[in-house]
Every structure is written in structure tokens, then in C-alpha cells.
């Protein structure tokens, strides 16, 4: 039993922090809010050189062969630096499903290209019903040999504007079925949404879009469950890093901002907010890592499922409290576009909503408690 980082993780964390402070500064984050693509291809390549897109991918497929706990250490740093771009989409929405259920040929075809930064993936799961469960998949799929054709609308697909491939979930008469769909075909129509976090999410209309069948006809939902679990915990890791930074910026501000002749951080009204912030950041971190550990070490299914739902239920709400306090501590300057704290506030909401907010996951916890 231990809560510390391993030496490798410590190294990964420190090198990622240094790298991202230089390569993903606030200005880049702001520029990408207004950029059509929403990411920097130059940074994307440099990240691939660091081995990050392939961190989780086995060495035989050109990756680094690290485990999911290590990845969460990295993603925490991504949250801290608010790194813009399709990293989570590609790794959690592309590499993970391919590793889980891809055929040997599919792994050989796609994983090395993900690791090298040559392709961008995303997961096209949610639809206008905005549900995260099996019933939410209404897009139709029809299987023909190793091919699958989709008709329907996907909504809130992250980074679809730049993705080369989408992992699409559709429904055949056998059930949910997955396919690897190239976006450069006439049957794929991407319409970008303007979002609170100014990230890139899109409506994707599939009109006879065709791709490789991923897994088997009808077993798509079982295959997606671990994918959704990993992605959900990765969003928690992102939230933890984001909240940690929001908290640090706010404490620094409280030490500098002078009113009534003294730093506002000397007032208990502010001090107690800061104390609650660190309690929520730390609490989120450990509950997230417990879920990540559970997934990485293949703990019993029931324990893992519970820990994933607990993590997202807690992190969603606790980090919302943190960024709300962050805004309040900053007062007027905090709600200007020029000041950085609002960048965290808006992005927290995106990740809070991703794969279900606190209410959604608390309901799942309640069900598992048998109430």
C-alpha cells in the first residue's frame, strides 16, 4: 500500500511539466481557442517525439508500453497546462479501443501511426439524445463482411474537425457495433459547434459512411465499457490538474492582492476558501488515482466499476467548487477575458460534463450500493 508516485512517474511528471510550460503557454491556449483546427501541428509532433501519443501503446506497435496509471500522471499535467488539441481523443478514443478489441491487423495498421503522431482519432459515441448508455446509440450500422456502414447523427464528437478516423458506435439488429471510419469520405459531414471551453466539438452526420468493422457485430457495447471507463478516469485526471492550477493561481493572487491595507489572503474569509480548495483538489486526486490504479491493475470488475463512478462523481463536483472559489477570490479581474483564471473555469465545465456529470455518476453509485 502506497500513495506515492513511482520513480518513472515522478520523472514523467516533471519532464511533462517543464515541456508543457514552454510548449503550451497561456498564449497558445488562447490562440487555439480561435484557431480553426484548435491545435498546433508543431506541438503535436513534439509530443509524439516525447512518446506521449504512444505512451500506453505496447512497444511492439511502436509505443512506450507504459500503463494507464502513468498516462493519468501525464494527463494531470495536460489539465494543468490546459493543453489544446486532440490528445485525449486520439489516445483514449482511438488507441484504447484499438488495443482493447482491434484485430492484429488493425493494431499493426493504426497503433504505430498513432504513436508517431501521424494520425488523429476520435470517438463518435454520443448523439442528439446526449446519453452515455447503450440505449443512447441509435445511429444505424450494417455489417458486410469486414466492413460496416453507418447512417445517423453523432453529436459532441471531440476534435472531429481534425480527426483522420472516427471510432463510430452504431446499431445493427444484433446490437451496438463499432467501426473505424475515415473522415475523408463523402458520407461524413462535420459541423463544428461553438462551445463553452472553445474546444472543438462537432455534429457528425454519417450518410452511408463506411469503415472497417472493429470487434464483432453486436458486441460493441461490451467492448466500449472499458473504453468509456478509461476515458472517464482520464477526464478526471485532466480535472485534477486543472483544479490544482486554478487553486495555485488563486492562492498566489490572494497573497498579492491588497485591500484594506493588507493582502486579502490574510482574511479568514479568503483563507477558508483556499483551505476548502486544497481539500477538494487533494480529495479528487486520490479518488481519481484509485480508479486509475484499479483499471491499470485489473482489479475485480465490480470494484473497478464502482471506483470509476465514484471518481467521476466526486471530481466533477469537487473541481467545480474549486474553480467557483477561484473566480470569487479573484473578484472583478477574474471575469475578464484577459485574465487567465477564466480559462480554467470554462474548461472545467467541459470535463465535468464529459461522460456524465456528478449526478449521472452518483446515480450509478447508488445503483451499485443497491439503493
Amino acid at each position, binding site marked *: *500500500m*502506497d*500513495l*506515492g*508516485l*513511482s520513480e518513472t512517474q515522478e520523472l514523467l511528471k516533471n519532464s511533462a511539466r517543464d515541456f508543457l510550460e514552454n510548449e503550451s503557454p497561456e498564449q497558445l491556449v488562447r490562440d487555439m481557442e480561435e484557431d480553426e483546427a484548435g491545435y498546433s501541428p508543431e506541438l503535436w509532433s513534439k509530443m509524439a517525439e516525447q512518446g506521449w501519443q504512444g505512451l500506453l501503446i505496447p512497444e511492439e506497435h511502436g509505443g512506450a508500453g507504459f500503463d494507464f*496509471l502513468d498516462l493519468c500522471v501525464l494527463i494531470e499535467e495536460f489539465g494543468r497546462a490546459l493543453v489544446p488539441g486532440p490528445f485525449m481523443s486520439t489516445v483514449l478514443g482511438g488507441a484504447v479501443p484499438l488495443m482493447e478489441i482491434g484485430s492484429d491487423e488493425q493494431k499493426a495498421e493504426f497503433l504505430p501511426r498513432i504513436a508517431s503522431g501521424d494520425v488523429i482519432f476520435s470517438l463518435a459515441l454520443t448523439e442528439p439524445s446526449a446519453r452515455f448508455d447503450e440505449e443512447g446509440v441509435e445511429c444505424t450500422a450494417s455489417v458486410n463482411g469486414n466492413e460496416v456502414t453507418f447512417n445517423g447523427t453523432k453529436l459532441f464528437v471531440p476534435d472531429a474537425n481534425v480527426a483522420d478516423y472516427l471510432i463510430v458506435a452504431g446499431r445493427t439488429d444484433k446490437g451496438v457495433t463499432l467501426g473505424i471510419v475515415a473522415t475523408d469520405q463523402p458520407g461524413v459531414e462535420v459541423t463544428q459547434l461553438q462551445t463553452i471551453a472553445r474546444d472543438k466539438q462537432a455534429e457528425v452526420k454519417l450518410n452511408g459512411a463506411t469503415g472497417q468493422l472493429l470487434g464483432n457485430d453486436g458486441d460493441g457495447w461490451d467492448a466500449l465499457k472499458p473504453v468509456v471507463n478509461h476515458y472517464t478516469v482520464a477526464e478526471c485526471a485532466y480535472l485534477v490538474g486543472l483544479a490544482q492550477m486554478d487553486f495555485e493561481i488563486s*492562492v498566489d493572487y*490572494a*497573497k498579492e492582492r491588497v485591500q484594506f491595507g*493588507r*493582502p486579502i*489572503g*490574510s*482574511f*479568514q474569509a*479568503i*483563507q*477558508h476558501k*483556499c*483551505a*476548502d480548495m*486544497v*481539500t477538494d483538489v*487533494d*480529495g479528487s486526486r*486520490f*479518488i481519481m*488515482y*484509485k480508479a*486509475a*490504479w*484499479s483499471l491499470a*491493475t485489473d482489479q475485480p470488475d465490480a470494484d473497478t466499476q464502482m471506483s470509476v463512478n*465514484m471518481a467521476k*462523481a*466526486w471530481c466533477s463536483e469537487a473541481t467545480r467548487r474549486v474553480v467557483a472559489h477561484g473566480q470569487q477570490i479573484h473578484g472583478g479581474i477574474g471575469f475578464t477575458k484577459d485574465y487567465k483564471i477564466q480559462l480554467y473555469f470554462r474548461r472545467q465545465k467541459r470535463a465535468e460534463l464529459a461522460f456524465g456529470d456528478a*449526478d449521472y455518476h*452518483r*446515480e450509478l*453509485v*447508488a445503483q451499485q*450500493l*443497491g*439503493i
Partner: protein
Amino acid sequence: MDWSDSPEQATFREEVAEFIVERLPGRYQSGSREGGIVQSWQADRKSVDTEARDSAMNWADALAEKGWIAPHWPEEYGGAGLTVMEQFIYNQEMAKAAASPVGGMGVSLLGPTMIVHGSDEQKAEHLPRVLSGEVAWAQGYSEPSAGSDLASLQTRAIRDGDDLVINGQKIWTSGAQYADWLFALVRTEPDAPKHRGISFIVMDIKTPGITVRPIVDMGWQEPFNETFFEDVRVPAANIVGEENRGWYVGMTLLDFERSGISDAIQYERTLTRLIDYGKSEAGAKHYRQDWKILRHEVAERYLEIGVLFNFAFRIVSMQNNGMVPNYEASVNKLFGSETHQRLSRTGTKLFGLYANVWQREGEHAPMNAEFTRDYVGSVPHTIFSGSSEIQRNVIATRGLGLPRG
């Protein structure tokens, strides 16, 4: 990061669990303890009921065989010299079985403090008698005018030859009515800055001039006392550590090793029983008709208990890696005590009108009125050992480096 036991840890856990199954007297095997304040073992050893007294003694003897009355003390002083991780596992297993700890404050606070600061004579006199269960200790820190601002305490100890003569009053001396000895902070140098004129002193509670008067609390129980000192003559040799340095002696050791994880496990057990009760015949009657609107609130309590477990685990993990916890212990106390109150509140909400019932007996008392009693009994938890406000101050100033007000 690893939430699972190493093979050695698993073996040790099994050893503790088996020991408890074999040796824990029936009296302690089930049942709920409310409020976390009343130390049932301490009360039992002075009980008029012979079964209670025998149970207390048998349990103490069983633990003593293993050195587990004071598992965290070094072996040379009769402890088991367990590593912090072993203590963590030991405390978890004890809490899972709801096994009453033995020795109270003598084991948790007085002993560790004396081991660090006491003279050889003091150690030889007091430590064995803590371990044998012969002497129970109470703590005299707070005063009517020195609560959160403890260092402003005014109980005066004036030198007279080889003695100190003590006058003043302590309050909230938990368990003093069952105790044999008292350790206290007293002012030995009134003109020094307030933290620098305090000494840590021990005394027999039957010393002439000491009067212990129980305080009846809002739940009509008597967990606390007022303790009065009127010309109480105590040898100056009873000062532990350096004279006038008692503030630092008293603050050396915090009992976070035990309380954190035991509370998390106790709350989880309590919540599980609350949920199970709803599925029983009696529970179906006592749960309010519209209880399902509280499902998410119950789930939130479960999340909080999970978070609390990790906070306790973090402290142990830090110590195990050679780090000294700073604000982390305050986070633990703050979050734990507030979780405790929320848990009791959720229980009372589930029972609707039945949450009125205070009596433990009869068909109208849900779970023997445990939650209603804990709703009242948990009120002090956010106040004693540093209130929630003090904990937040400590986190902000000592932990985050915010300027003091």
C-alpha cells in the same frame, strides 16, 4: 501508487484479523459506538458490572500478549514497534471489527510524548502501568477561557521548594471520571510570551485539591468534565520535558495515526448498516415513504467516506516514505468530522418522523435510535481537537503560506 497489500502486509492483516476473531470478548464484538467520544473500554474497566470489568481486563490481557495495546510504541518500551504501515493495517482491522481500543489517552498521547520528552525515571514509573491497564490517563489542556486559543491558558503553577502549587480550572477533560492520572499544560512563567511560559506536567488525579465534575452534554450524557485545582501540590519532578517548554512538548505528537483510518472504516460500516436496514422489514417501516429522493445523498456519503479513507492513507503513506505531514493532518480532521456530521444527518433524514425517537428500546426506534443520537453526539466533532475553523486556518497559513490575519 498501490491500494493493495504486499504479501507481507496481507500476512500481517490476516494475523490481526484472526487474533480479533479469537480473542475479542463478546461484549465488544458488535454494536455501535456513538459520537466517537465515549471510550467504552475506559468506562468498562471501572464499571460496577463484573461482566464489563472482566471483558475490559481480558481484552487488555489478550492485546498485551502481542504488544498490541500500544502497537506504535517502540519495543523497548513494551510496544510492538510496528511500522506506520503495520499500524495502519492494525487500525483498519480493529475498526472493521469495531474492536474497542485499549488504554485510551495513555497509549495514544501520554506514552508517545513521554517516550520523546520524559526522563528515564518518568518512563520507568508510568509506561509499564499504561501498558498493563493499571493506570488510565486524562488530558487537561482546554480551559474556560482557552479553547481555540489554547496558548492563553491561565491555570497557574507556582514553584514552592521542590513542588509546584497549582490553581485554576480545566474543562472538557474527557474521561477524567474514569482516569487515575492527568497530564496537563500549566502556566509556570506568567511574564513570558504566552507560548513560552507553559509546562507539561503529570499528576495523580487523587491529589488533594483536584475536583472532577462531570458536564452533562446536550445528549444528556457525561463524556466530559470540568477539573478544578485548588492549591494542588505536585512535585516539580513531574514536569515532562523542559520547564516552560511545555507547549512544544504537548504539540509534539498528534494522534492522527489512529483516528483517521478508524473513523473512515467506522463510517463505512455505519452507512452499510443503514442501507441494509432499509431492506429489512423493520427498515421498510422506519424509512420514510419518499426515501428514494435521498438516494443521491446516500451515494454522496459513500463518496465522502472513500475520500476520507484516502486522506488517512495519505498521511500514513507520507510517513512511510519519510515525510512529515503538515496541513494534511488538518485536512483529515476537517473532512472527517464534517463527513461524520453529514452521515448522521443523512441517517436522520431517511427516517423522517422516526428520527424524533431518542429511546433505544421499542418498535418505534429505528436502529436503536443510533442516528438520532449520533446527530446530537457528532456536534462536538467539528469543535474538539481544533475546530473546523482552526483547521482551515492551519491549512491556509501553515499549509498554503497565506499571511496570518
